[in-house]
């Protein structure tokens, strides 16, 4: 009994202390660990939620990407279609340009120049046998028939005494002169036409055709093939 009194605590108490410290340590440590696990679990669930959100975003993005790439495909296809159309259009365009040129020439919107024929219509020399001067002067009907013949033969542009004719032109007879689109012209009349020279002169010279009729009406007709016939547009002022 002496020994325990000398020391602060007895051996028995020391052993108990050790045991209690151990128990406390184990319990505390276990508690600590479980707490960490709980926190970790919470973090895990938060992470899971976040992961879900991110995954959803990713899926959305991928779907959007898919849609966009499909759109790109469609657009590229339409571009290709348009390019094809463009190429076809270019092929057509040449034809259209040519046709537009023809139509402009026909309307007389642009000056015309090129190979063609020139027809000179002159009054016949005075012949005292004929009492009526109407029998040997050039009438507007003669000019008409020449113009019509040239048009039928495919003339690109026609001018009378340098006055360009268009689709709406008119020719009137006013005594010894004729009026073309409000402008008076005396004889002789020069009808110029741009076009295929061979076709034009051939159609004029048809047997029983226009030339024969004109000659029959005592008109002096001169047909001349000219490689450089120029005429202004209808809008040009003489």
């Amino acid at each position, binding site marked *: 009994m002496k020994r325990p009194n000398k020391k602060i*605590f007895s*051996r*028995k*108490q020391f*052993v*108990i*202390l*050790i*045991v*209690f*410290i*151990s*128990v*406390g*340590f*184990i*319990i*505390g*440590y*276990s*508690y*600590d*660990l479980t707490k960490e*696990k709980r926190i970790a679990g919470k973090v895990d669930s938060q992470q899971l939620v976040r992961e879900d959100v991110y995954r959803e975003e990713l899926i959305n993005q991928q779907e959007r990407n898919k849609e966009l790439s499909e759109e790109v495909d469609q657009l590229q296809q339409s571009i290709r279609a348009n390019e094809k159309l463009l190429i076809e259009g270019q092929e057509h365009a040449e034809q259209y340009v040519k046709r537009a040129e023809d139509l402009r020439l026909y309307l007389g919107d642009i000056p015309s120049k090129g190979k063609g024929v020139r027809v000179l219509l002159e009054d016949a020399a005075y012949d005292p046998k004929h009492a009526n001067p109407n029998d040997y002067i050039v009438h507007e009907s003669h000019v008409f028939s020449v113009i019509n013949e040239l048009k039928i033969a495919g003339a690109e542009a026609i001018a009378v005494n340098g006055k360009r004719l268009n689709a709406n032109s008119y020719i009137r007879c006013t005594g010894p002169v004729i009026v073309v689109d409000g402008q008076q012209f005396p004889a002789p009349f020069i009808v110029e036409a741009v076009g295929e020279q061979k076709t034009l002169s051939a159609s004029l010279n048809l047997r029983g055709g226009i030339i024969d009729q004109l000659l029959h009406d005592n008109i002096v007709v001169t047909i001349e093939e000219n490689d450089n016939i120029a005429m202004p547009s209808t809008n040009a002022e003489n």
Partner: protein
Amino acid sequence: MWLPLLGLLLGLALGLLTDMQIPVVYQNYLSIAVLAALDTLLGGIRAQLQGVYDDKVFVTGFFFNVLLAAGLAFLGVHLGVDLYLAAIFAFGVRLFQNIAVIRRILLAKWDAHKNTAKNK
């Protein structure tokens, strides 16, 4: 009386402050160790109250039980049998028995104390 309490607090502080990490696999051992420690503690208290306390038995019982429980759990993990359940069961039963015995002894003591006070 203050010494065991001090020891318990010291141990708790140590345990809470320890930042040691152990793998998840070994956390079963820890739970069993906790049970074993509690069981031995209560057994010691009961023995004390019954007047059969022996510090050698107490100390060896404490450490041996803890080690045995851990060893059992280890064996169970390696054999594929949940042997730690057996340890938990055994310790749980003994825990309740010990607590019941302590309660009865304390009740008997209290009654005796009351009687003596009456008699006076």
